[in-house]
């Protein structure tokens, strides 16, 4: 690991000043420290933000929730209000990583974790995300776990978060020290510049994530398929937040994980489902509407079928 300067920020302002000077923010470090060991990132300076007073989960006057950036994943997953009002979020968090990692990893760090594409993590290989312009060996290489939506000729990596998929379905908002961005506008697709992953400016600090009040009568769930029973990244995951009245789907918000460079909001599926009878036929039609846009790579076509089955199953559970 390359050496670096280390400082613990005493305040948000101090952190932002260090960030403006090029320091990288250290939260729990469960991803960053690993990437530093691998030589994938080599910051000259770290500013530790993990003890800033950003670890509160507060109920908003609107009935929503404001979640501080340094809240630990395990604390968020087990929060009573989250479990009661946003079960999809609690389920997504508990489906991610291991107990040890969830105890340390923060909310902002979870949002900003990097792809687990094997080429990104191996500095002996080219990677347009890690070394812009060097090429993408994944396109013709080992890409079984990579994207079927939203990828480009420059990058086919997926975003690894479970939590962010639930937040996408919940229409969460990301607060930085200077502005608020909808989570669904927070991540950018790779196109020509896969090194750019979010709309954050250099040094911009995420301070919280906020949720609106849960929709009246809404039910939600997160379902994840992986290569082993636990402690593995999603091959495919689905988050659904839906309201069904008298057998008709009033609203459905759907996001997929493990299939795109960002949590993939399935707007076509939502549109196909809205106002329709909550039936197997409608669920299949919704899946088909979204999957029509899928562009599987040579070896990950199985994800298309996996998304279809997982979405239909999750909708069946949530909309019954």
């Amino acid at each position, binding site marked *: 690991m390359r050496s*670096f300067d280390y400082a*613990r920020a005493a305040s948000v302002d101090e952190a932002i000043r260090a960030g403006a000077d090029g320091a990288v923010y250290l939260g729990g*470090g469960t991803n960053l420290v690993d990437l530093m060991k691998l030589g994938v990132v080599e910051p000259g300076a770290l500013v530790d933000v993990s003890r800033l007073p950003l670890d509160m989960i507060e109920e908003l006057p609107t009935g929503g929730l404001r979640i501080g950036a340094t809240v630990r994943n395990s604390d968020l997953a087990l929060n009573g209000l989250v479990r009661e009002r946003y079960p999809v979020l609690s389920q997504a968090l508990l489906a991610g990583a*291991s107990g040890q*990692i969830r105890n340390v990893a923060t909310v902002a760090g979870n949002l900003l974790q990097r792809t687990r594409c094997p080429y990104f993590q191996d500095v002996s290989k080219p990677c347009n995300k890690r070394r812009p312009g060097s090429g993408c060996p994944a396109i013709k290489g080992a890409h079984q776990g990579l994207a079927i939506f939203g990828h480009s000729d420059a990058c086919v990596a997926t975003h690894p978060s479970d939590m962010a998929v639930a937040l996408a379905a919940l229409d969460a908002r990301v607060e930085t020290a200077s502005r608020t961005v909808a989570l669904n506008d927070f991540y950018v697709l790779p196109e020509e510049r896969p090194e750019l992953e979010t709309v954050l400016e250099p040094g911009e600090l995420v301070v919280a994530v906020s949720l609106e009040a849960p929709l009246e009568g809404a039910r939600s769930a997160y379902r994840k398929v992986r290569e082993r029973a636990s402690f593995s990244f999603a091959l495919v995951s689905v988050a659904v937040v839906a309201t069904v009245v008298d057998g008709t789907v009033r609203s459905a918000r759907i996001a997929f994980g493990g299939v795109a460079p960002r949590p993939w909001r399935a707007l076509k599926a939502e549109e196909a489902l809205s106002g329709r009878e909550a039936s197997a036929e409608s669920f299949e039609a919704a899946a088909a509407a979204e999957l029509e846009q899928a562009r599987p790579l040579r070896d990950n076509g199985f994800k298309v079928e996996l998304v279809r089955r997982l979405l239909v199953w999750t909708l069946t559970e949530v909309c019954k």
Partner: protein
Amino acid sequence: MASEIELELTVNGVPRSLEVDVRTTLLDLLREHLDLIGAKKGCDHGQCGACTVLVNGHRANACLLLAVSLGGADVTTIEGLASDGELHQLQRAFIEHDAFQCGYCTPGQICSAAGMLSEASEEGVALDAAEIRERMSGNLCRCGAYVNIVAAIAEVAER
């Protein structure tokens, strides 16, 4: 560049004052600086759990924590679980149930189980075998001693 930083923390009840290279992980601090070699370096990437210790009572992978970020922390390793010469009840249960083969993952398994039992108790969750397996999934055993590991933890969970 300030490569050495002063650090104070408590390890197994003993206050320690050290000067460490900023790159030192908690795992290397324990093993290389404090001669506490119970926590093991398996993958060194947070994937195997062999380095699991308790930090302020919560289980964590020591390999992914920068020591400099832990000023003031209270760390418990496998060496600190036993007290007054008496094995911790999880240590006894692992022996009784033959819950290991080579033993390399065992300190991490036991520290993780200790943290996991506190978590489950705080949540008020009953631990059946499936729940134990899910909650212990951050600890791999390449000998495949899982059946007996689960039995050992289940016995302590029932107490």
